[in-house]
């Protein structure tokens, strides 16, 4: 199993709670701001295919993945394909370029997204995506055994390109080799790829939809959704890096975020209104490096909030404290 890429330029690990979902952030005048595009994402496709995938098939797979993000009703996401280019993805040229690259040095990386960010306001100036030709790719509608589904990985990388970071909503097992094998995911933005031949990750989860709706909210997303906020503590102290998952029993959806500061505060926003069960777990199903650039606390037991919490429509819940115990 190969891991998906870390983002090449990370301004992650916000020092104050980001308002919902784990997003990329940039430090602007001492404050963390979301990293986003202004206006449509105008992109080029690099004019190079790979084994089993032509340039046209690459263009179409990326277009399908882009359409999946654009179809989220509660978000204003727009892509514009500008044409083929001879440029390669990692060139700093002020243009968003998506294409194949041969990166034998990144033997466990299927693809990666790099950014050029205006640090005066957090705007994305340029973002490129490459897919590693060290892997066998597939654009088959039903998937191809032994090959990685290009559309699924493009969907994940486009999530990064839009400003989303990784979600920890998934289950993985650590093997003796040191690799992690994913057993289940609850977000396209989970950092570990599913197995080759799988095409299920062409579909966004509720967690992805909440994240993108928080970054690019449609007017309906602001008025029709709610937020839950609170604090995770251990022995009276805040816990940094605790993974907090909100479960809506009525809709069966899972949406998560992290405690993002030393006080252990968290916010989960863009939730469909309703009562939620909150579950707190340590970040032990993926490498913490995929999420945080600072040390986090993973020494505590899985704990549920003592009561369910309501995300009110157009507002926020009362703060809830969830006390966890050491393992």
């Amino acid at each position, binding site marked *: 199993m190969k891991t998906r890429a870390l983002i090449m330029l990370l301004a992650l690990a916000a020092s104050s709670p980001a308002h919902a979902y784990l997003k990329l952030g940039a430090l602007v005048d001492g404050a963390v701001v979301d990293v986003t595009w202004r206006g449509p994402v105008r992109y080029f496709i690099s004019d190079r295919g790979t084994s089993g995938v032509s340039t046209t098939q690459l263009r179409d797979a990326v277009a399908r993945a882009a359409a999946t993000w654009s179809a989220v009703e509660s978000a204003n996401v727009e892509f514009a394909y500008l044409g083929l280019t001879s440029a390669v993805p990692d060139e700093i040229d002020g243009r968003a370029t998506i294409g194949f690259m041969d990166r034998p040095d990144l033997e466990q990386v299927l693809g990666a997204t790099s950014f050029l960010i205006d640090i005066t306001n957090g705007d994305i100036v340029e973002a490129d995506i490459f897919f590693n030709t060290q892997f066998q790719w597939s654009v088959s509608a*039903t*998937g191809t*055994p032994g090959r990685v589904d290009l559309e699924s990985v493009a969907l994940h990388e486009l999530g990064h390109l839009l400003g989303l970071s990784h979600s920890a*909503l*998934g*289950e993985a097992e650590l093997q003796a080799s040191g690799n992690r*094998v*994913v*057993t*289940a*995911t*609850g977000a396209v933005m989970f950092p570990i790829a*599913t*197995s080759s*031949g*799988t*095409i*299920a*990750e*062409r579909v966004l*989860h509720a967690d992805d939809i909440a994240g993108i709706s928080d970054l690019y909210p449609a007017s309906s997303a602001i008025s029709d959704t709610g937020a839950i906020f609170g604090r995770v503590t251990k022995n009276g102290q805040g816990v940094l890096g605790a993974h907090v*998952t909100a*479960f809506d*029993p*009525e809709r*069966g959806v*899972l949406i998560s975020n992290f405690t993002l500061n030393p006080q252990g505060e968290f916010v989960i926003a863009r939730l469909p*209104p*309703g*009562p939620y*069960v909150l*579950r707190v*777990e340590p970040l032990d199903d993926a490498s913490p490096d995929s999420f945080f650039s600072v040390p986090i606390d993973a020494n505590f*037991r*899985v*704990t*549920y*909030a*003592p*009561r*369910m*919490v*309501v*995300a*009110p*429509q157009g*507002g926020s*819940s*009362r703060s809830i404290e969830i006390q966890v115990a050491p393992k």
Partner: protein
Amino acid sequence: MSRSLIVAALLTIGFPDAARAQVAAGQVTINGGLSWAGGYGIGESSAQLRTNAPGATPPPFTLFDVDSQIGATLGGEVRVGVAVARRFTVEGGAVFARPRLSFNISGDPEAGTQELEGESLQHFLFDAAVLWQLPMERHPRWRSFAVAGGGYLRQLHQDRTLVESGQVYYFGGGARYWLRGRPTSARSIGVRGDVRLNLRLQGIDFDDDVRVYPTLSLLMFLAL
């Protein structure tokens, strides 16, 4: 005038309709008291992830299961009835209660089974009903009846932060006992007990199934 005649005269003044043979159409009855509602489940749900299996629809991985219940509760009830015929009364009523919504967590290999504290809901029911007084009049102070009706349900979560609405339909029966006056009296006081079977549609529910629960009411009434 003898003492017994004086008492009889006072009663006649106080309850001028006592001598009538039947309830006049238009008679208004005001009821108020306590209502107990039984608890019921509002659905089971599983927190599921998508497994790493080939195909477009791989089988799910269950992170944990949630079983939800609304607990039994005691509330307040008021009803106003208007007699439309000798044996038929049309009623409007309102019930307020604070039932507890609770959750049981199971199937989580990392946390074990546990019951969450839950929350106290605000539950309002506004209903209309038809009450039929049964043609069994063996005791001068007792009258039994059958009742059926339906209403609008409004349930509010924590601090009224979320409103969910639905409908309740019910049928049942009960009895009234006159403490003062008689069933045919225009001004009388008594107690009333109802047993109903309720069918609840929508409201706070995680499966949107029809829920069935019993209610018992004990009310004082004043017939005007």
